[in-house]
């Protein structure tokens, strides 16, 4: 028992204190959060756009679908199929080693590459979540907006999307949490996120227990924090349901 405690103390020392190793974790958290938040923003923008195109296409009578809408819809469908049909890690590898093959491996480039890859990936899932939200709104809401002279996009923006968003907030929250955890695979392109930080410390110190348990706890804490924030936001958005 004593020996185990002593080992743990040594593990702690080498993992965090020695050579300011804790900075790997601090910087790692920053990068993990940065990639998660920026990718989420990109994902939501992409996802809402795709969802609007897909629902606009499905809600228009066949005769009234313009050629532009049809083409956009096909593009969206291909995007959804490809992104959801291939592993995230493979997408990331292709983005960095194929599409960005010439780029220097600076932090800036790696972060940009990660944000774009995760944003594009997340967009596909957000799109389907938001689309299901749009579909869940009574079609009378759209008709009321249109009958007042508002166009499709305005009615979407001021009436449908806010309601759809509220309905799918729990699902979007799950997507955010998944995204946060999934970013750990940026280690394969060498970006020094939280997971990579722990791997570096482990390689330098030969300590495995403390660094890996530590990042597990950090991820868990971040997830709990996010869930709490999302819960708060949901309660605020539920205002219009209070009787």
């Amino acid at each position, binding site marked *: 028992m004593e020996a185990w405690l002593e080992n743990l103390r040594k593990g702690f020392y080498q993992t965090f204190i020695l050579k300011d190793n804790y900075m790997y974790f601090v910087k790692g958290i920053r990068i993990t959060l940065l990639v998660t938040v920026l990718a989420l923003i990109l994902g939501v923008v992409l996802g809402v756009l795709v969802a609007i195109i897909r629902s606009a296409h499905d809600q228009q*009578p066949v*005769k*009234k679908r313009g050629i532009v809408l049809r083409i956009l819809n096909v593009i969206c469908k291909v995007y959804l199929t490809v992104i959801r049909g291939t592993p995230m890690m493979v997408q990331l590898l292709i983005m960095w080693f194929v599409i960005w093959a010439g780029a220097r491996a600076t932090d800036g480039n790696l972060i940009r590459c990660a944000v774009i890859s995760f944003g594009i990936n997340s967009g596909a899932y957000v799109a389907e979540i938001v689309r299901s939200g749009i579909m869940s709104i*009574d079609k*009378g*809401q759209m*008709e*009321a*907006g*249109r*009958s*007042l*002279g*508002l*166009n499709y996009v*305005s009615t979407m923006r*001021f*009436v449908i999307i*806010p*309601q759809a968003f*509220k309905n799918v907030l729990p699902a979007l929250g799950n997507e955010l949490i998944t995204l946060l955890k999934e970013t750990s695979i940026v280690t394969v392109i060498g970006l020094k996120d939280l997971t990579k930080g722990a791997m570096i410390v482990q390689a330098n110190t030969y300590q495995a227990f403390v660094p890996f348990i530590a990042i597990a706890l950090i991820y868990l804490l971040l997830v709990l924090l996010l869930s709490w924030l999302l819960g708060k936001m949901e309660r605020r958005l539920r*205002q*219009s*349901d*209070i*009787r």
Partner: protein
Amino acid sequence: MIYVKDLSKSFGDNQVISHIDAHIEPGEKVVIVGPSGSGKSTFLRCLNLLEQPDRGTITFDGEEITSSSVDINKVRRHMGMVFQHFNLFANLTVKKNIMLAPVQLKIMSKAEAEEEAMRLLKLVNLEDKADVYPVQLSGGQKQRIAIVRSLAMNPKVMLFDEPTSALDPEMVGEVLELMKQLARDGMTMVVVTHEMGFAREVGTRVIFMDEGVIKEENTPREFFENPRDPRLKDFLSKIL
């Protein structure tokens, strides 16, 4: 004001409207009655192109709105529509429901729209509900607000699709009262309803629709006292 010529509409193989001709003059209160599934709603929804007709033309205020070059959003500003299920915007307060279209369409400034919303709410005695969300209202209150929401656009004609059918009986009166007031103020109205009392009292003309065609139309008195079409006689005997 509204001329309908040779209007037809099908859903798949189901021909819902067959070659209807109709004319609605300014100030008229046209009441449409008929059995369920006869195409009343579809006809009404064709008038503001919520349904796209398969053939025929609709001319509103001298403009052929069925022509593909017309900006239908501009046309709809002048045609209010009231739905059976109210369709208040669930994410907006009562006041914002009324203000949304006038403000977004840049017909009024925010301040003007707010003033107008409050004026309209006072008209229906609901100014104390300005800042509540639709879920907190009774059916009758919702429908009265839906009506004034349309009025905020200052429409030339109002289309009503069974505005009282989803209401508890004790709330029907307050909505009909508001519609009567509108009628007295000279609004042109097209009303699909099962309220025969309203048709008699307010209607200037009553139309009987059956199987997608207008089987009979007449003044309310003639319509109810001297029905000629056998289907209409049958229909009236069932509901009166």
